[in-house]
């Protein structure tokens, strides 16, 4: 007890001494605590965030697979992605009534399309996707990362499918860049784009000063990538039962519709080689192109499915994402469908209340032959200028909404003072047609925009459809060996005949029979391509690769109602584009030229 007391005392004393002696030190201690805090770096460590660090990322197969999932954005899910307009709005196929939209400016404002303001520029985004794909190829395919740890067989098959997807996407993106930027550069050489086949190191000066590969090198790599994709484990089609009636697992069944197939790889090959053989490029031969197309025909057959049905076109084709015509498609929006396309392009006015944006031109209307197969300019056609829309190719009816046509139970009036023209209820200059026509193609007749009665429908972007292969083949075979050569099984004439048969042109088709020369056949093939593939983003590039006239005056029609059930049609010139010759090839981004040393600009830009 005493001891304890003494102990207490002494500690008390020493404490007091401490206070006296070390009061100063106490205060320093307080500062010291702060200094300690500061030396403790953990204090400054930020909180855990929801992003994944590199280590976390590469350890997780779902994340790594996500690299190519993200790159799929390079495949558009709809057609009207050019400021809300179709790429065809920058061609003689149609005008947009969005006067300040980029497509319209391209057509109407001389000098608007420059290396600085390029409405079809997607350089940076697509290279961003290539970066993802290359990263995936580097880390996701070597077998160290397992997608199905418990089933190595499935893992292998799945990884092979991913490999096919990755190489298809790389080819698809490289080609998308190539057709926008490939061209004769200021040194007079036909150049492509800088090919991206591996991850770049931003600290490596070499990687920051790439040059453009030649057009041929680009085509070669695209073909090479497609061959790798074809040798990987992509199926010919995604289906639920195999030939024996067994269920196909989720990695390869129809839940994968929208991913590339071997047919899609071949179709892309056919397109790439056709472009490369075209007059503007000419780095490969039409024989190669015809061969590539015929390889697809070997798989899909020589007959086209009957999708055209004037009374039921939405359900049979435009809004049916599983129709037989499709080789690969991407569906718009989510599983509930949507009606954005109708909102933009339905005619304006009571009941339809669209924005009437895309206005097919009189030029396109005139391009449709008569139902008997004769072009309207042919004396034998039976065409009547005062009854323009009578007896036309059935595809016309399914592509264009014209005056007095019945659409969604309503008679469309595009005559002056009509219900779907300026001045009518809900129709302003901003949504009424400039050409006298509204767009029918891709529109769902099921969709409804009226408040309270809203109905959605399925829409898609048909990336590759069977008819394109027929047209590719016809063009290549005709150029290579003329209309009637059958080196590749069928002739160009056979292919075109099948396209026209399927479209509903009279079986006899005396006009086709009357064509004998390569040149006349070429014109017919071009015209068939134009009307079959309109509003699918082809014409803009087709005109350029053919070196054709980009500046056809775009025309429309003014219609007056005679009041007795007849109408008076007056053709009108609306605008003549002022594309320059050098605009067969697009401009490389101006900024990119400033930022790099070795990338050359195409001539003229």
């Amino acid at each position, binding site marked *: 007890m005493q001891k304890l007391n003494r102990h207490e005392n002494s500690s008390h004393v020493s404490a007091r001494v401490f206070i006296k002696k070390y009061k100063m030190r106490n205060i320093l201690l307080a500062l010291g605590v702060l200094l300690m805090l500061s030396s403790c*770096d953990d204090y*400054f460590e930020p*909180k*855990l965030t929801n992003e994944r660090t590199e280590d976390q990322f590469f350890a997780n197969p779902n994340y790594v697979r996500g690299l190519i999932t993200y790159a799929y954005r390079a495949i558009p899910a709809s057609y009207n992605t050019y400021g809300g307009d179709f790429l065809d709005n920058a061609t003689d196929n149609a005008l947009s009534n969005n006067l300040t939209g980029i497509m319209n400016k391209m057509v109407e404002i001389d000098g608007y399309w420059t290396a600085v303001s390029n409405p079809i520029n997607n350089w940076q985004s697509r290279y*961003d996707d290539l970066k993802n794909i290359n990263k995936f190829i580097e880390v996701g395919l070597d077998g160290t990362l397992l997608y199905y740890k418990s089933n190595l067989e499935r893992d292998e098959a799945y990884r092979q499918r991913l490999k096919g997807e990755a190489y298809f996407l790389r080819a698809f993106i490289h080609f998308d860049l190539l057709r926008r930027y490939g061209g004769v550069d200021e040194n007079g050489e036909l150049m492509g784009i800088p090919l991206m086949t591996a991850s770049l190191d931003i600290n490596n000066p070499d990687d920051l000063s790439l040059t453009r590969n030649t057009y041929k090198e680009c085509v070669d790599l695209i073909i090479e990538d497609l061959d790798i994709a074809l040798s990987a484990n992509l199926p010919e089609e995604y289906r639920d039962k195999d030939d024996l009636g067994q269920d196909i697992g989720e990695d390869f069944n129809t839940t994968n*519709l929208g991913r590339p197939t071997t047919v899609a790889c071949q179709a892309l090959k056919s397109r790439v080689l056709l472009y490369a053989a075209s007059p503007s490029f000419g780095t490969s031969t039409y024989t190669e192109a015809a061969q590539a197309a015929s390889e697809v025909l070997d798989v899909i057959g020589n007959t086209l499915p009957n999708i055209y049905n004037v009374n039921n076109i939405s359900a049979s084709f435009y809004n049916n994402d599983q129709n037989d015509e499709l080789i690969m498609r991407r569906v718009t929006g989510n599983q509930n469908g949507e009606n954005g396309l109708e909102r933009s392009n339905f005619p304006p006015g009571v009941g339809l209340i669209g924005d009437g944006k895309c206005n097919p031109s009189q030029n396109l209307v005139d391009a449709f032959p008569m139902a008997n197969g004769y072009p309207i300019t042919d004396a034998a056609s039976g065409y009547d200028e005062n009854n323009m829309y009578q007896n036309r190719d059935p595809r016309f009816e399914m592509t264009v909404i014209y005056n007095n046509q019945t659409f969604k139970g309503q008679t469309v009036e595009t005559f002056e003072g009509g219900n779907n023209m300026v001045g009518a209820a809900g129709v302003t200059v901003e949504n009424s047609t400039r050409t006298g026509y509204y767009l029918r193609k891709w529109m769902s007749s099921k969709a409804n925009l009226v408040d309270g009665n809203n109905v959605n429908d399925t829409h898609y972007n048909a990336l590759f459809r069977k008819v394109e292969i027929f047209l590719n083949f016809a063009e290549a075979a005709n150029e290579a060996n003329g209309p009637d050569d059958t080196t590749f099984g069928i002739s160009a004439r056979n292919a075109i005949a099948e396209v026209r048969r399927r479209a509903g042109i009279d079986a006899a088709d005396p006009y086709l029979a009357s064509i004998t020369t390569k040149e006349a056949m070429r014109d017919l093939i071009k015209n068939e391509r134009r009307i079959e593939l309109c509003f699918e983003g082809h014409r803009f590039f087709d005109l350029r690769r053919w070196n054709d006239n980009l500046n056809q005056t775009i025309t429309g029609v003014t219609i007056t109602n005679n009041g007795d059930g007849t109408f008076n049609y007056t053709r009108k010139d609306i605008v003549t584009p002022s594309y320059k010759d050098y605009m067969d090839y697009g401009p490389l981004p101006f900024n990119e030229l400033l930022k790099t040393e070795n990338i050359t600009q195409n001539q003229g830009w």
Partner: protein
Amino acid sequence: MKYYILFFLTAIVGVVSAQQKKDTIKVQLEDKIPLPFGEISKNKLVGAVDVIKGEDLMHTSDYNVESVLAGQAAGLIVGEGNGSPGLDNTWLKIRGLSRGGSSDQPLIVIDGIANRALSSISLDEVESIQILKDVTAKMLYGSKAANGVIMLTTKRGTNSKSKFTFFQEYGIKTATRLPEYLNSSQYANLYNQARINDGLDPVYTNEDINNYANNPSVLYPDVDFYDEFLKKSTSFQRINAQLIGGDDKTQYFLNLGYIGENGLENLGKNQKFNRFNIRANLDYKVNNTVSMFLDIAGRMDVWDRADITNAEFFNSLSSHRPNDYPLWAGEVGDTDNLGYGARVGTNLVGELARSGYVNNKVYYGQTNLGLNFDLNKHVKGLTAGAYVTFDVYNAIGLGKSLDYSRIRFDDPTDLTQTTRVGTDVLDDKESRKGDNVYQNLGVVANIDYEKSWGKNDLLINLVGVNQTLTRKSSLAGPSTQQDDKNINIGLRANYTFNNKYTIEGTSSYMGSDKFTKDNRWGLYGAGGFGWIISNEDFLKDSKTVNYLKLKGSYGVMGYDRSFDYLLYRDFYVANGNLRTGPKNSSIEYGWRAGQIGNPNLTFEESEEYNIGLEASLFNNKVDLEVNYFNELRTNIPVVLNNALPDYTGNLKPVGNFNEISNKGVDLSIRYSDKIGDFKYSVGTNVIYSKAVHEVFDEINEYAHLNRTGQVTDAIWGWQANGLYQDDADIANHGVTSSYGNIIPGDVKLEDITNDKGDNIIDQFDRKVIGNAFARVNYSLNLNLEYHGVELYLLGQGTSGRDQMLSNSYYWNVGENKYSVQALGSAVPGSVAGATSPRLTSLSQSHSYRGSSYWLVDGDYFKLRTAELSYSFSDRICKKFAADRFKIFVRGNDLFTISKIKDVNPESISSGITNYPMFTTVSLGLKLTY
């Protein structure tokens, strides 16, 4: 402009003519100036610091601590946005745009701790506010202080007889300026013209227009929204009670305040704002060595209003056209039915009266608990202290969102044909409309040493600060909210020889949580000198120059507030998805790189020097301080968009790259004198500043688009040359526009890039056409006193500023509501004399975009504050048993001089997109016992 110069000249003449007067008001040079973590006598100060005394802020009926600072200090620039009840809608800049206008707000420090808002303080609690401007003054506040520091100190008790003050004020507020809009018939007429201009048919028939004008009805409504929905005036009330006192052991400051203000809403629910605040600052001396202090402050702000924000309300007033809908659908059944218009859809009466309510409460609590040690008996001149602070802030919104029906008339000939749009929702659950919390924890420790020997004076402060701000929003906030963390250790040594020559060194070791471990600490330093010339022999006995000091400082300090967190690391994020399968029935998620980290990121730095002169002249009647400042901000973080080719992908790292210089002069002069019992003083604060992009990450097609070398507040736009008079004029000019058709009455824009002969007006034809931030900000202050009658005037103005008149009031385009500006619009055929371009019914057009046509001189001068007060004589005070009794009448924003006459030149969208600013007149009294 003339007026301002006149004002200024009057002030100067006053100064000069009064040279001869003998009586002086002593300038107290020994006044201590509070600096970060210590105070220093004014004559030893080497830096640039403005001091605002709390009592100087007590002349105004504006109760917001931020806006009352306008014009109070030479280095501080304050701009007001709108007059929403209970909110500080202001911006503050010290010495202009030190970072070029973005993220250059000053650091706010209250009672030694940052991360506190000025708006958390009640004006009655303010002892003084220091504006720390130069690098030596700011240094010790560390890595957030480079834009300048506003340092507020609250009042404390005194060792004297306790003093109780009671204050009450009641006032009326009227909108300073409100925009004027057209009525229905005027609108219909002009909209028809707009349609004709666009080549379209008119929409309104003559009969329609006639009905709007002479026979308004539910079918032809003619609603004056501003008139119907806004009161002519609103009122506010302030009450404050304050007790100060103590003895040598205990001192206390106790304050209790109330503010009540009503909104302008006339129909439906009128907004009510109430504020209660309390504060107790206590000091207790434990013994000769240890003393303690405890400060506790709490505040509650409550807003009660309809379920519509102030911005939504005013945006509705300024966008709902007079003919959009009748407020009441009177003809149908009971008269309580609201009208409906398809274009708008809602009904503003319904929004205010039937949409439910919101009750927002904001609670602030601030506490400081500290210990001070007087260690004189151990080491002479040594003191030390430490304190801990803890603040909480909680904002909670509770309310109900209800709905209401409107009546649509379907047949113009038969008013019984109606449809009810929407349904009446009269009951719903009360729900959370907002929930934000933050906590601020701070620890400060300091050691001060002061010693004088012979002719030498030495002062050393050593200080460490650590503070952490934690935020949380329970409603839809970001998924991770980082804490703001700061550690700063600073040292200041100030040495004076012979009371003439001072040198000071100050240094700061700054910690930051924005960089990698290797880059988290930065050591920065600054030095300065002071030379009191008036203490030299040759000036010692001068009657003209009573005090004269030359001072200068130079240093570099770090800044990290402009950096986001974790910029140094690479990471990946989920992004995008792929849908596959029939009708997109399956989904798979995408991932991509989310950031290219830059591990080399380090502090942004501010290199500054300041040269100043302080003087008292003519028997101390004139006080003057002028400073030249030159700041160069380097290593400003910027996304390096131009360093990497675009073929490397979308992501670009952030790097330390841009540089901005900011130079200028600030000046304050005060002349004080008296003639018999008549005392007066006049003063002015002036600042000139100009910030320039010295280095800017950019690549442009044309040199005239480069920002490098341009002022940071440059207004970019097209050069306009009046309006096209007629078709011949258009043909002569020979340009087309990428923005729409050109007809007579459109703005004639200059085509400055025509290298391909294209003659197109496009984005590349823009250039610098003006500057948005005033080069000169100034204020004038006049104080008169005679036998208890006092007059206080404070005016504030700007010079060298352009204003783009680009809001919806000036741009009557598309389907917008038309203001009176539309009356002066050009009509093709008679363009001459028009005051605005031809109207257009299209939403995009050539004329309505930022060109010099819309640019006007944005300068203004405002009489911010006027107060006339009378202090009763002691004899009368005794009757109230009071020591002092003062009554006053006050006015705020009584007049504005500017070329902009229609809207408020300080904020042209006030009253249009949010509350207007107010002119206030009030009465009040102050009793002291």
